[in-house]
């Protein structure tokens, strides 16, 4: 490897937008193929990669559509490249066809959804409206995507290595679910992993090309026999159960003595921390559970914390999506509250502290039901 392509030393303090940190992080993690289509608020990713991939001898293609972009990824992943695409909600919707095929073919690749307001064209402001789309597979058929939710430029820059390693370990697509604020915000960060030498990534035993001395290889998602497809479905199921048991990440803060726990990810978690710190100054004990993997969902720890505190508050930038997973994790054993700001509006720390106080005061609440604290 030519050392000139290493742009930043490991641990070196730098200042980048979340989207740029992500783009550099993917190259650093071994990405050498990008195809995508412009959409706000993720445009810094393709713009950065259009010159950066050139520097490292990779391929950058601005595709004619999101649909084409994801199918180029299918081809690149079939050859074993660390491939990447990025988009925002409307574009991810178009990519779902290809994502379903790639998940069915069990090829690893990485994609990012820098979320904006929806549904439809919505707007370009930060939002968390695509949680369902991300965590339920998204396209047609019975499959799952590993979903990582960064809350900072630091995690945008460093998650790509984790994402590629995990995707390749399980031969499954992995996505980064960020939002417009995480993508656009400029923050100091450093890379916590060394620049990956792509020459040293082991060759995979499933890639196509150069069939000399072996049987032909087919990457295929068509199984006309119902028995074969059923077996394939159960094989995938077992893989997803394995991922669930081995790869669930979360961050816990101030939960030891908490009277209520906020469950929030990404931007909503960052702002919830402001509410928690202000609350602590006033003697109000709020804790935070931040899921880092949205699928697999950290249901066990949420169940434990719910039983300990008796009150759980989901804070989201939508009208209530993650809260349904919280409700399932709580399983009727604690009170479930929800506060959301959809449409691209972002809640303030004071708003969140206010609703947490309200939830703490509420009595005779039926456990397990979702109590919406927005005044609507």
């Amino acid at each position: 490897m030519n050392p000139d392509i290493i742009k930043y030393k490991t641990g070196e303090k730098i200042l980048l937008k979340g989207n740029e940190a992500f783009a550099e992080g993917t190259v650093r993690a071994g990405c050498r193929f990008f195809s995508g289509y412009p959409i706000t608020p993720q445009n810094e990713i393709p713009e950065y990669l259009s010159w950066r991939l050139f520097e490292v001898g990779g391929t950058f293609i601005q595709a004619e559509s999101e649909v084409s972009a994801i199918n180029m990824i299918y081809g690149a992943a079939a050859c074993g490249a660390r491939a990447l695409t990025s988009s925002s909600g409307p574009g991810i919707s178009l990519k779902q066809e290809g994502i379903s095929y790639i998940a069915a073919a069990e090829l690893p690749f990485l994609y990012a959804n820098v979320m904006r307001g929806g549904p439809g064209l919505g707007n370009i402001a930060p939002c968390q409206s695509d949680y369902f789309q991300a965590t339920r597979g998204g396209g047609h058929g019975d499959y799952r995507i590993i979903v990582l939710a960064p809350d900072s430029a630091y995690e945008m820059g460093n998650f790509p290595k984790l994402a590629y390693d995990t995707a390749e370990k399980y031969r499954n697509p992995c996505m980064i679910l960020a939002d417009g604020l995480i993508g656009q915000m400029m923050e100091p960060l450093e890379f916590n992993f060394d620049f990956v030498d792509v020459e040293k990534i082991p060759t995979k035993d499933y890639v196509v090309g150069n069939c000399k001395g072996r049987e032909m290889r087919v990457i295929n998602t068509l199984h006309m026999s119902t028995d074969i497809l059923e077996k394939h479905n159960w094989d995938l199921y077992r893989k997803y159960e394995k991922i669930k048991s081995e790869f669930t990440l979360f961050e816990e803060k101030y939960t030891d003595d908490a009277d209520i726990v906020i469950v929030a990810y990404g931007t909503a978690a960052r702002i919830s921390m402001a509410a928690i710190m202000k609350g602590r100054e006033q003697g109000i004990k709020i804790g935070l559970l931040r899921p880092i993997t949205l699928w697999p969902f950290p249901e066990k720890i949420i169940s434990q914390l719910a039983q300990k505190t008796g009150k759980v508050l989901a804070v989201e930038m939508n009208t209530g999506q993650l809260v349904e997973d919280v409700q399932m994790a709580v399983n009727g054993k604690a009170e479930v509250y929800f506060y959301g700001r959809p449409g691209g509006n972002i809640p303030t720390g004071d708003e969140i502290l206010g609703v947490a106080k309200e939830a703490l005061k509420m009595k005779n609440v039926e456990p397990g039901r979702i109590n919406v604290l927005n005044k609507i």
Partner: protein
Amino acid sequence: MKREYKRPEGLSKTIMRYCPGCGHSIVHRIIGETIDELGIREKTIAIAPVGCSVFLYEYFNCDSVQVAHGRAPAVATGIKRVNPELIVFSYQGDGDLAAIGTAELIHSATRGENFTVIFINNAIYGMTGGQQAPTTMPGQKTTTNPFGRDPKLAGYPIRVCEMLATLDGPVYLERTAVNKAVNVLKTKKAIKKAFQLQVEKKGYSLIEVLAPCPTGWGISPLKACEYVDKVMIPYYPLGVYKDLTQVK
């Protein structure tokens, strides 16, 4: 006695499941022969489409990727850019290539991607049971044109070679047919040339092959071959639409 007419090594031993009189198996054999003659089997990747030729990956003795309807040129782009030494061909029918995959077709062509597209134009959707294709002839009856295709309601057939010839990206575009021996030989020549150009890294080529579909058209194999001559070729004239290798 020496056996001259053998199954090409480029084809697998699987029996093809095409109807009697169908053009697909002829074109498969031509591609198999081409793979053998150019000695490229071990580095060839076939892109299998959606349509009657969906099981293409069972018929060729090389690595392959089965892809979504119309997306073959995008997948081929990804493969070829990651590994430019591979020989990649997409094999697509008229619905796959000229309806749902029109964007992928045009943009891979205009980028001049160095792969080969084999386009089977039989003017109908075969596998789904004989519905209207973008290349269905005016007046032709299909299961979704019970009164015959009326261009005023269903538009006109698309001439793919003529359309792509307006682009600067492609290197070689030719339309042939497989309805009679002389046309089969010309198809072989065209397909081999297209693969040869890819081997030489000359760029994008597409061979459109007019093929009979007796089952979809509801006529005998013999009548289907006549239909190609009498109805299709006048609308889709055979010949070379672009050949940059001839330009000095």
